[in-house]
């Protein structure tokens, strides 16, 4: 039991450390730390309709996070979830544009598949660069994020531009109302079902298939797995493509669900938050399901803060960043400290 509890305690301790750092930063810019953190907790969990907001933000994050778990477990730092998410949304939007007029039962699955294909393609080229040429995937996927953001700007102000649109943010024509899988605010049974399916399949893939076991081993010791005769390159490319496809699926869920249309620069922190979820969950798909809801709550608090309390939403970015800073810290440090102070 203790061996199971230990990682949880360790994660909790490092998150606490991250919150201390956040408080220091809030204090440094002249905000009251307790007040700010209190307002964030209020916005995350105690506002009216909190659960609906948590599900609205948490479920798409969860879908992307399961993909991140798959690629990180295989030992590949696919930082490009954001770009793959954007490409998924873009491809789904193009599919929706071409399918205009067809029945929802045909169109919605096709758009979802198009989104997954788009995300998978955006993960495929860094995978090939990594496996065939040895180009580091951290930078290539990161650059992929920036390129995808520019593509989104291009698509929303060019090919898919909404001619009647006005205002500062370029956006595409809205998806047909009959195809929307949820209202603009909140979640729906369809999205919950998709997320549940992703978690179940992800869990099965990671824990019950030879791909899952081998990729987990390859992430820790690629040399050993190669010597055992597994095809490491194939595992690597599959892990990349799967994680890209899931990020793309999240993109099309956002498009067909709450957003209803593409807007340039929408949800800019989605990918980074999904990476955090995977890390905090310790690369476990089941844990990710719960952690995603927590981060969904934080994200919804980020939108609520400026409106209700006048506090800046970048406070949430600080919390995310501090957690990222500490979350991978090693357990040995605490054991060493405990030993030094004679427990």
């Amino acid at each position: 039991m203790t061996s199971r509890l230990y990682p949880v305690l360790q994660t909790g301790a490092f998150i606490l450390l991250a919150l201390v750092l956040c408080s220091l930063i809030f204090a440094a810019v002249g905000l009251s730390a307790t007040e700010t953190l209190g307002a964030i907790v209020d916005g995350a969990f105690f506002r009216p309709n909190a659960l609906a907001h948590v599900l609205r933000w948490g479920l798409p994050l969860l879908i992307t996070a399961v993909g991140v778990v798959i690629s990180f477990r295989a030992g590949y730092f696919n930082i490009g979830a954001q770009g793959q998410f954007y490409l998924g949304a873009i491809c789904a939007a193009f599919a929706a544009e071409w399918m205009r007029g067809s029945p929802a039962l045909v169109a919605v699955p096709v758009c979802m598949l198009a989104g997954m294909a788009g995300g998978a393609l955006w993960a495929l080229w860094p995978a090939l660069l990594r496996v065939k040429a040895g180009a580091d995937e951290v930078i290539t996927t990161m650059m992929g994020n920036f390129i995808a953001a520019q593509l989104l700007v291009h698509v929303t102000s060019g090919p898919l531009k909404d001619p009647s649109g006005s205002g500062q943010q370029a956006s595409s024509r809205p998806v047909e109302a009959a195809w929307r899988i949820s209202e603009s605010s909140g979640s729906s049974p369809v999205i919950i079902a998709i997320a549940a399916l992703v978690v179940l399949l992800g869990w099965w893939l990671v824990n019950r298939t030879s791909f899952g076991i081998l990729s987990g081993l390859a992430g820790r010791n690629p040399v050993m797995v190669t010597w055992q005769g597994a095809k490491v390159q194939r595992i690597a490319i599959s892990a990349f493509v799967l994680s890209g496809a899931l990020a793309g699926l999240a993109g099309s869920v956002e498009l067909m669900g709450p957003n209803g249309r593409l807007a340039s620069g929408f949800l800019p922190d989605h990918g980074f938050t999904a990476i955090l979820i995977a890390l905090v969950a310790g690369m476990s798909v089941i844990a990710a399901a719960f952690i995603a809801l927590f981060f969904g709550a934080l994200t919804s608090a980020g939108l609520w803060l400026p409106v209700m309390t006048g506090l800046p939403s970048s406070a949430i970015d600080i919390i995310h960043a501090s957690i990222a800073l500490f979350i991978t810290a090693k357990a040995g440090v605490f054991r060493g400290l405990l030993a030094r102070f004679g427990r």
Partner: protein
Amino acid sequence: MEDLIVAFLRSGTPLVYVTLAGVIAQRAGIWHLGLEGMMITGACATILGIVLAQSVVVGLLAGAVFCCLLALLFWFVVEVLKANQIIAGLGLTGLGLGGTALALTAIFGSEGAVSASFGLPRLGPAFGAFGGLSVLVAAMPFVVFACWLLLCRTRFGLRLAACGEHPFAARATGVNPGTMRLVALLLGGPLCALGGAELAAGSLQIFSVNMTAGRGFMSFAAVIFGAGHPLGATLASFFFALVGALGIRAQLSYGDRIPSSLLLALPYVATVAGLWLSARMRGGNAASSRELGQQ
């Protein structure tokens, strides 16, 4: 032609300073993905110093101090807490981006942009078409030379490289790799601050949220492209800057035919191409010593 060179120097100089910081860290064995966060902190501190204290010196000093604080934090997390360098670096970047946005909101009441009434000192009319460039552009070759001297021609540089390439060997000769990494990161702090200062106060005299737009990551890519050598990395960042300047030029001449957002993506595409090239040149699968703690 002249204005193309000016644009090229303007966009290249911030990259070079930040790249040098990345090179020093890389040689000490640290993958510094926090460069972006330190660069934007330097940019923000410089403009805030100019706006609030009416002094460039105060701005530069504030930038250096804040960047060194971030470097210290990064060192603590990576070296003492043994966190994963890549994730912690991304966290540091997030801290810089979020922290500057928060500071702007806390001081001026709104996220967005702050403009200063004056920027870094200029070269002056004596330099003709290049008179509009800041003194940091002129100082850049000397800083690159100093870095080369320090890293490639001194005992300290050799020890630093030993800490990165073979920490056990370094320890055997009585060098503490942990301390050397701290020194390397602290040296990078002021360099990042200068890069950020040149970006924000060199020609624009404005700071806006997220204004670095991936330049820190591009600098890191230049470190890899340049194989961790100060001169190679400098050339690599010049290459990225050249592509960026050509993109801006193309926007002016062909803006009606090629969508501008695609031209803006050019430097990122060039970065990917550069990484691919350098990996090809080095041949095979670059050994990466990055593992992620799995429970």
